C-alpha cells in the first residue's frame, strides 16, 4: 500500500511547503489562482506546432517555484507520474503525421514529432503551474480564495472536509490493505469478491464515522452553515501581480520571443 503512503505524503508536503513564509505567501490567493488560469489558457491557446514560442512561458512556474522554495525534484517527480495519458495520446501524432514539416539543417522533422514535442511542452508547463499554485498557496487558502471568487460554500466546505479526512480514511485503507497483504501469500491484488468485502467494511466504518462527526458538530451548535475562512483583503500588490502576469502572457503569446531574440542577435553579429 505504498501508493497510499506516497499520496498522503504528497498531500502534506505541498501544504508544508506553502506554509513557509515568503513574498508569495502574502499574495492574495485569488491573484495566484487567476494568474495560473490565465497562464494555462495562454499556453493551450497556441496551435499544435508551437514549440519555440512556448519556451518563455516556462519562466512563470520556474520563477514562482524559486520564490516559493518549491523543490524542483518534487515537481519533476510528479510530472513523470502524471505523464502517461498525455504521452499515450500524444505518441500517435508522430505515427500519424509523418509529412515533413520542418527542415532542420537538412534533417527533415515530421509534423507529428513537432506536435508531439509541443504536447509534451504544454503538459510540463500546465502541470508545473498547477503544482506550483498549490505549493505556494496551500490548500486552505486556495479554498478561501475560491470562496471569495464566488464558488458555492457547500463546495469549498466539501473540499476542506475531503482534505481533512483524506489521511484518516487513507490510513484505514492502508492498514486493511496491509492486513490483507500479510495473509494473501504473495497475491498482491485482492480478487473482486475480497475487494468488495474490504471496501464494504471500510465503507461501513466511514458511514459510522460520518455519523459521529455529525454528532460532534451538532453538539457544538452546528445547524447547517459553516462560518469559516477569514476573508483576505485585495491589495495593490495583488492587482499588480495579476495584471503584470497577464500582460506578460499576452506579450509572449503574440510575439515569438525566442525567434525574435535569435534574429536580433544574428543581426547584431552580422
Amino acid at each position, binding site marked *: 500500500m505504498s501508493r497510499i503512503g506516497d499520496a498522503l505524503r504528497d498531500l502534506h508536503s505541498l501544504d508544508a511547503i506553502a506554509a513557509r513564509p515568503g513574498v508569495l505567501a502574502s499574495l492574495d490567493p485569488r491573484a495566484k489562482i487567476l494568474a495560473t488560469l490565465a497562464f494555462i489558457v495562454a499556453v493551450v491557446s497556441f496551435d499544435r506546432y508551437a514549440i519555440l514560442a512556448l519556451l518563455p512561458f516556462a519562466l512563470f512556474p520556474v520563477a514562482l517555484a524559486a520564490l516559493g522554495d518549491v523543490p524542483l525534484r518534487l515537481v519533476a517527480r510528479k510530472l513523470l507520474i502524471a505523464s502517461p495519458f498525455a504521452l499515450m495520446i500524444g505518441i500517435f501524432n508522430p505515427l500519424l503525421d509523418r509529412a515533413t514539416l520542418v527542415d532542420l539543417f537538412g534533417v527533415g522533422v515530421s509534423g507529428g514529432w513537432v*506536435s508531439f514535442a509541443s504536447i509534451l511542452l504544454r503538459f510540463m508547463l500546465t502541470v508545473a503551474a*498547477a503544482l506550483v499554485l498549490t505549493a505556494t498557496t496551500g490548500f486552505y487558502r486556495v479554498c478561501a480564495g475560491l470562496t471569495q471568487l464566488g464558488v458555492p460554500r457547500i463546495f469549498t466546505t*466539501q473540499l476542506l472536509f475531503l482534505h481533512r479526512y483524506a489521511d484518516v480514511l487513507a490510513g484505514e485503507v492502508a492498514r486493511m490493505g496491509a492486513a490483507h497483504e500479510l495473509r494473501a501469500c504473495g497475491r498482491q491484488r485482492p480478487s473482486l469478491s475480497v475487494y468488495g468485502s474490504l471496501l464494504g467494511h471500510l465503507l461501513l466504518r466511514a458511514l459510522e464515522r460520518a455519523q459521529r462527526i455529525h454528532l460532534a458538530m451538532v453538539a457544538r451548535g452546528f445547524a447547517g452553515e459553516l462560518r469559516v475562512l477569514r476573508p483576505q483583503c485585495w491589495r495593490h500588490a495583488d492587482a499588480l501581480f495579476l495584471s503584470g502576469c497577464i500582460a506578460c502572457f499576452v506579450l509572449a503569446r503574440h510575439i515569438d520571443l525566442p525567434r525574435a531574440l*535569435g534574429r536580433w542577435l544574428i543581426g547584431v553579429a552580422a
Partner: protein
Amino acid sequence: MHMADALISPTVGVTLWAASTATLAWCSRRIRQGDEERLIPLMGVLGAFVFAVQMINFTIPATGSSGHIGGGLLLSILLGPHAACVVIASILTVQALFFADGGLLALGANIFNLGVFPCFAGYLLVYRPLLGADRLASSQRRITIVATLAAVVGSQLGAFAVVLETMFSGISNLPISTFLLLMQPIHLAIGLVEGLATAIVILFVRRARPDLFMANAASPIPISSRKPLLLALGIATVLTAGVFSWFASTQPDGLEWSIAHAAGSATLPAPESGFHTAQAQHKITGMTDDKPPTGRSNEAAWPAVDSSRSLASLIGAAITLGLVISIGYLLRRRRSSS
C-alpha cells in the same frame, strides 16, 4: 481517464468549465436545505473514502489486469446524484491540484466526464428507474445487473466525451475512429467492473447494517425534476450530433483526411502535400485560434526552410531557456540567502 491540459484547447476547456460550473451550482442549490447538517460530514467522509479507495486496485477476473472503482455510482446510491456530483468534483479538484491528475483547465471537462455522466446518466436515468420504487429491497441479482448497466452507461458516455473533447481541441492528431476504438472497449471493461464492485459493496453494507444503509440511501427524486434532465441530455445529444456533422461537412476531406493519415503516409507524396496538410490543419485549429501563429505568416517558405531561419530559432531557443534557468537559479539563491 482524466483529460490533461496538454490536449485541450481554450474553447473546449472554457465551454466545459461553463457547463460544469452551471451543473455544480444547480447541484449545490438542490442539496436540500435542512439536510445540509447531515450531508456535510457525510459528503466529506465519503469523498475521502472514495479518494482513498481509488488507490486500491483489484484484479479484473479473466484478464489479469487491474482496475479501481470510480465511485460515481456508489456515491449516487448513498447520497443522491446532486451531492454525489459535488463530491466527485471535489475529489477531481484535489487530484488536479496535488497530483497533477488532470489539468486545471481540463478540470471542467473532467468534472463533466467523470461526475455528471455517472451520477446523472448512470444513476438517475438508468439505476433508479430500473430498480423501481423499492430499490432498497431489490434482489441481489437485480441490483448487480442494474448497477453494472448503470456504470457501463456512465463510463461509456464519459469516454465518448473525452474523445469528442480531444478531437475538438485539435492538438492531438488522433482520428476519431482510432480514438473511439481505443477508448470505448477499455471503458466498457472499466464500467463492467465498476458496476460489479459497486453492487458487491452496496449489498455488503445492506446486509451488515441495514439501518445505516436506509438512513443514508438517497431519497426519491420527484419525477418532475427528471424531465428537465432528459431534455438537457437530449439537447446535448442533438447539438453534439449537429456540430459534428457540420464540422464533417464543412471539411469535405475532414474524415477522409484523417483516415488517410491513419493509414500512414505511404500514399502521401512528397513534402508538398505536407504543406497542404499543414494548411488544412491550420484551418481547423484556426477555428479555435484567433491569431495565426507567428513566424508562419510567409507560408510560401514551407517546407524549404532556409537555414538562417533555423539558426535564429535555435539561438533564440537556447537563450530563452538559458535565461529562464538562470533567473530561476538566481531567485532561489536570493531566497536562501535572505
